[in-house]
């Protein structure tokens, strides 16, 4: 970074500072860079010695406190016809994070610093508001662009990098897009969207609530005290997931597949989709209630178990087995416990009747691997390009999955009808 780039980035990072103070600050840094250059350093060396603009802004804010207890900023239509990339860093302790946007995916990761970072892309005609109050941070998209580019789903995204050790609540809502939350610990985590997919991976929460319409839910290595996932027209997949209390997963037109799942009170409900997979523990531990109207069920009703399992569907089969291993403690809600569950490949389920393999393409496995290597967003447009590509791929994956689900449901229905009427 040269002097000019550094000062531009610093000016941007000091967005909450009053204008006159920001100018004074920029003059100071221009002066010390000049003095370092006079002393024989290159502009790049001088800039590197000063630390990043975000660090400088965060330090000024924490030491002098120019931010009010409550602050807000809005980003309204810039005159520019180009998308504007916005990067914000927030220091201080946060207990709540809330994002409400439209038509764009949200990606949430656990960062490796003690600041919260927010990245999003503002298109011409859009308006965003950021509010901070009593430890809460809220990003709201208050106006969407009038002209909707049909390919926009792949172009925009919100990326949240939570501070190290974040354990507050979070609420992420979008539409026509997916939400993915990886690695983290939450008090209460709420996710909501439509026409996309909700993915949670490697996290713990007191309460996890997922609400979706026309899309799939996927939980991998999740530990919580209460899990509620609901969707319509989408599949639900839970792998190495445990709840110390309620574990409720429901969908209308999709299948529910389980792999190493544990819970004190497991409720699985679908209408036109099958329920299959394996639950941790032995059958004797559970009071079982299973019902399908027009399908077959391998579960028999039984009472007297300390835990309960309810599986309900109408026009499909129930095929749930027990691992036979003792579930590793009811209080287990940590990822370590979840890791110990099993090492089976979580990505495929095989339909016994057709032999068809459901699950993701291998590329998506790679996606997750890439994700763990991901550094923090550093303002590189190539990074945005890469994310766009990735989200595009993910969107097409979830649409493909939705199509497969639908096909599967129809086949099931056809089979039921044949059974009934010869």
């Amino acid at each position: 970074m040269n002097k000019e780039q550094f000062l531009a980035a610093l000016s941007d990072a000091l967005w909450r500072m009053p204008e006159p103070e920001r100018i004074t600050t920029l003059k100071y840094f221009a002066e010390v860079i000049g003095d370092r250059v006079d002393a024989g350093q290159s502009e790049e060396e001088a800039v590197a010695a000063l630390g990043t603009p975000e660090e400088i802004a965060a330090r000024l804010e924490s030491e002098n406190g120019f931010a009010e207890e409550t602050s807000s900023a809005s980003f309204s239509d810039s005159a520019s016809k180009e998308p504007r990339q916005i990067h914000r860093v927030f220091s201080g302790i946060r207990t709540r994070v809330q994002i409400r946007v439209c038509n764009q995916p949200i990606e949430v990761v656990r960062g490796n610093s003690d600041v919260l970072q927010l990245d999003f892309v503002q298109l011409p005609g859009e308006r965003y508001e950021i509010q901070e109050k009593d430890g809460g941070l809220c990003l709201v998209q208050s106006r969407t662009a009038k002209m909707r580019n049909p390919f926009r789903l792949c172009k925009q995204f919100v990326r949240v990098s939570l501070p190290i050790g974040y354990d507050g609540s979070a609420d992420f809502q979008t539409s026509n897009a997916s939400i993915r939350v990886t690695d983290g610990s939450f008090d209460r985590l709420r996710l909501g969207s439509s026409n996309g997919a909700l993915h949670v991976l490697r996290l713990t929460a007191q309460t996890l609530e997922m609400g979706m319409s026309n899309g799939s839910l996927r939980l991998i290595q999740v530990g919580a005290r209460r899990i509620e996932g609901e969707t319509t027209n989408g599949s639900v997949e839970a792998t190495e997931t445990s709840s110390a209390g309620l574990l409720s997963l429901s969908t209308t037109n999709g299948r529910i597949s389980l792999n190493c799942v544990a819970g004190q009170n497991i409720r699985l409900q679908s209408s036109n989709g099958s329920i299959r997979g394996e639950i941790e523990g032995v059958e004797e531990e559970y009071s079982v209630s299973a019902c399908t109207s027009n399908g077959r069920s391998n579960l028999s009703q039984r009472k007297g178990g300390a835990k309960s399992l309810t599986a309900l569907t109408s026009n499909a089969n129930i095929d749930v087995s027990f691992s036979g291993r003792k579930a590793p403690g009811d209080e287990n809600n940590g990822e370590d416990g979840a890791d110990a569950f099993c090492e089976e490949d979580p990505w495929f389920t095989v339909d016994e009747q057709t032999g068809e393999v459901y699950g993701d393409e291998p590329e998506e496995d790679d996606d997750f691997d890439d994700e763990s290597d991901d550094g923090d967003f550093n303002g590189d447009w190539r990074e945005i390009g890469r994310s766009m590509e990735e989200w595009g791929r993910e969107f097409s994956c979830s649409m493909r999955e939705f199509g497969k689900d639908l096909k599967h449901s129809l086949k099931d229905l056809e089979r039921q009808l044949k059974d009934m009427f010869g």
Partner: protein
Amino acid sequence: MDAQIKKGLLDVCVLAAVYREESYGYKIVSDIGPQIGISESTLYPILRRLEQSACLTTREVAHNGRLRKYYAITDAGRERVSDFLNGWHEIQAVFDYIRGETEK
């Protein structure tokens, strides 16, 4: 050095660097660097705080075709330094107590 103690000492250190004659950002960092590690980025909030509490005054001087901001100590700043020096025996007493208790 403990970060909290360092934070308390830095203000006085900066005042000492401009005690005899006015100075500017880069020079202050170079002067006090050997005693207490500090960068211009760390110095800036301190200068800002000292200026706000009227311990420093500033003036801008043209240098090499650009502006350089000079910081000069005020009476309030000198008082701050002498308060620190006069209070030193109290710090020394605490230091002695800690050493005495832990060396028994």
